[in-house]
């Protein structure tokens, strides 16, 4: 991590600044489609999640899903954006095999959500990224090109699924910022429950606009749009390679053409889609099958009042109330489920222990098993119990780790594991005295050295005692007895 922004394309003579804007397509978490009542479920058999409306049969008409409107408004509120009480659905006209009506219903001039902003935490400080707009639109179906050499197969299951297109201002300046921006958007939408952000299933994808300019210049360069990038990593790679391509072109005296490009993930380069773009003229006009969408301020207010605590607010609270570092707070608020888990644990357990155990031990396990925290084998209650056993000195940190491992395997609660496995602390002074004496007898020479002033050998004795007790010895008692014995 650097503490100063430093992302430039550097060449022999120049430093180039990279200007990035994103159009994120986020699938609305609705059961049914934006304009029809067929299911949005992922991974079903081809053409089974399709209604006559989705496949554009003659005379079929769209009727809008109220839940999708709510989700768009909620997301708008989460982006601190202006909600437009009157918005209009337009048709975007183009021919493609998986676009059955020959047009996509979208919002063009009058989107449901206007300007807003998102705050990013970068190593060099916070950064505000402007949101231009958010609008609702339909997804297209899927064209499958690799099932036959001569034909394309068309599956309309996705046709008509509701998407929110979130358009940022050209405020992003590096792949890192893009990474942070997309993750932040995803976190906000997950908190709101408006988009599950699952990139593997295509619930979140983006068109990336890239241009370059010499450092210090005010005017934007000509931009290229990289279409449909479906992972954060690919976005970062695409930006880097596209920016370099543009710099090379300009420095060799050529001009950038404004165009749509495609990112080839295998070759790590973008290539022109111009041949396809040439014929495009989307001929937007208001969809005459739909009327203007008018929502009441009270509808917006009602949603606003029911909004959950959003990540920025929660982070602030975690830092102030629980004395977390910004890094720790960021980690713990990154998912609503994580912050809920954390808050559940600290209802009874020590905050400091809790944050460390969650961030280090629990995350290691979840990562390893590729689990969501809500499916964690260690429940928040069990973790709290374990931490309380540490706090009260009933088990040592070392034993706690052992117990935790067993908790991960069995899902059992800690006291049961401790009992079953005989991991209780050895707190009987007589037993401990026996062990200690035994250790000291075996290390007579070291006692002499210790007494001669080599005080750091004290740790060695403690270690040996713990080893001899399989880590179960009560450290406080060991301390007391050992000191006494060594004085003899």
């Amino acid at each position, binding site marked *: 991590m650097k503490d100063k922004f430093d992302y430039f394309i550097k060449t022999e003579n120049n430093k180039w600044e990279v200007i990035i804007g994103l159009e994120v397509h986020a699938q609305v978490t609705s059961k049914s489609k934006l304009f029809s009542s067929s299911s949005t479920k992922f991974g079903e058999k081809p053409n089974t999640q399709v209604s006559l409306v989705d496949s554009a049969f003659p005379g079929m008409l769209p*009727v809008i899903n109220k839940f999708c409107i709510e989700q768009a408004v909620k997301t708008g509120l989460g982006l601190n954006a202006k909600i437009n009480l009157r918005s209009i659905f337009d048709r975007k006209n183009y021919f493609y095999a998986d676009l059955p009506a020959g047009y996509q219903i979208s919002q063009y001039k009058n989107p449901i959500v206007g300007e807003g902003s998102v705050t990013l935490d970068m190593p060099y400080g916070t950064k505000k990224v402007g949101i231009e707009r958010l609008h609702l639109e339909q997804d297209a179906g899927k064209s499958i090109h690799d099932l036959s050499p001569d*034909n394309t197969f068309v599956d309309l299951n996705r046709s008509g699924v509701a998407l929110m297109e979130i358009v940022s201002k050209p405020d992003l300046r590096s792949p890192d910022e893009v990474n942070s921006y997309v993750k932040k958007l995803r976190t906000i939408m997950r908190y709101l429950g408006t988009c599950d952000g699952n990139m593997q299933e295509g619930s979140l994808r983006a068109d990336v606009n890239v241009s370059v300019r010499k450092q210090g210049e005010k005017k934007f360069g000509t931009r290229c749009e990289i279409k449909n990038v479906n992972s954060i990593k690919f976005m970062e790679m695409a930006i880097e390679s596209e920016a370099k391509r543009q710099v090379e072109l300009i420095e060799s005296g050529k001009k950038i053409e404004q165009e749509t490009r495609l990112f080839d993930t295998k070759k790590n380069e973008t290539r022109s889609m111009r041949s396809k773009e040439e014929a495009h003229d989307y001929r937007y006009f208001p969809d005459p099958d739909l009327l203007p969408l008018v929502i009441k301020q009270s509808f917006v207010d009602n949603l606003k009042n029911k909004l959950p605590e959003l990540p920025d607010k929660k982070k602030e609270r975690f830092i102030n109330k629980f004395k977390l570092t910004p890094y720790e707070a960021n980690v713990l608020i990154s998912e609503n489920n994580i912050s809920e888990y954390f808050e559940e644990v600290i209802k009874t357990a020590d905050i400091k222990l809790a944050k460390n155990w969650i961030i280090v031990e629990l995350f290691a396990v979840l990562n390893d098993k590729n689990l969501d925290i809500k499916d964690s084998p260690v429940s928040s209650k069990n973790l709290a119990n374990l931490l309380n056993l540490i706090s009260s000195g009933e088990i040592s940190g070392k034993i706690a780790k052992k117990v935790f491992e067993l908790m991960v395997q069995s899902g059992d609660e800690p006291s049961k594991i401790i009992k079953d496995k005989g991991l209780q602390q050895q707190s009987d002074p007589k037993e401990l005295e026996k062990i200690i004496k035994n250790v000291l007898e075996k290390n007579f020479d070291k006692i002499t050295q210790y007494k001669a002033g080599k005080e750091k050998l004290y740790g060695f004795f403690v270690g040996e005692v713990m080893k001899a007790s399989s880590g179960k010895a009560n450290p406080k008692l060991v301390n007391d007895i050992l000191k006494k014995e060594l004085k003899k």
Partner: protein
Amino acid sequence: MPIDKNQVKKVAKLSRISLDDSKLESLSNDLISILNFVEQLNKLDTNEIKPLTSIIDKSLDTRDDSVSDGQIRDQILKNSPEKNEDFFIVPKVVD
């Protein structure tokens, strides 16, 4: 002239309608006369007028988010000129 033959060709391309040259001639003439006819509107000053967005004075009705459609693959595919059990089949898409 409101439109020339090249523009007609372009519009035909956008509309995905192939036109042979014999058709192009007569169609272009028709389009010219229709466009000349509609250009009467230019006599009217409409700078201050807001365009009409819908003819009825009503906001959009909504429906609840419940699944009550789909699972009719055979109906969906039934009328298709080329299909198999699962998919619509079209000639190869070339980028």
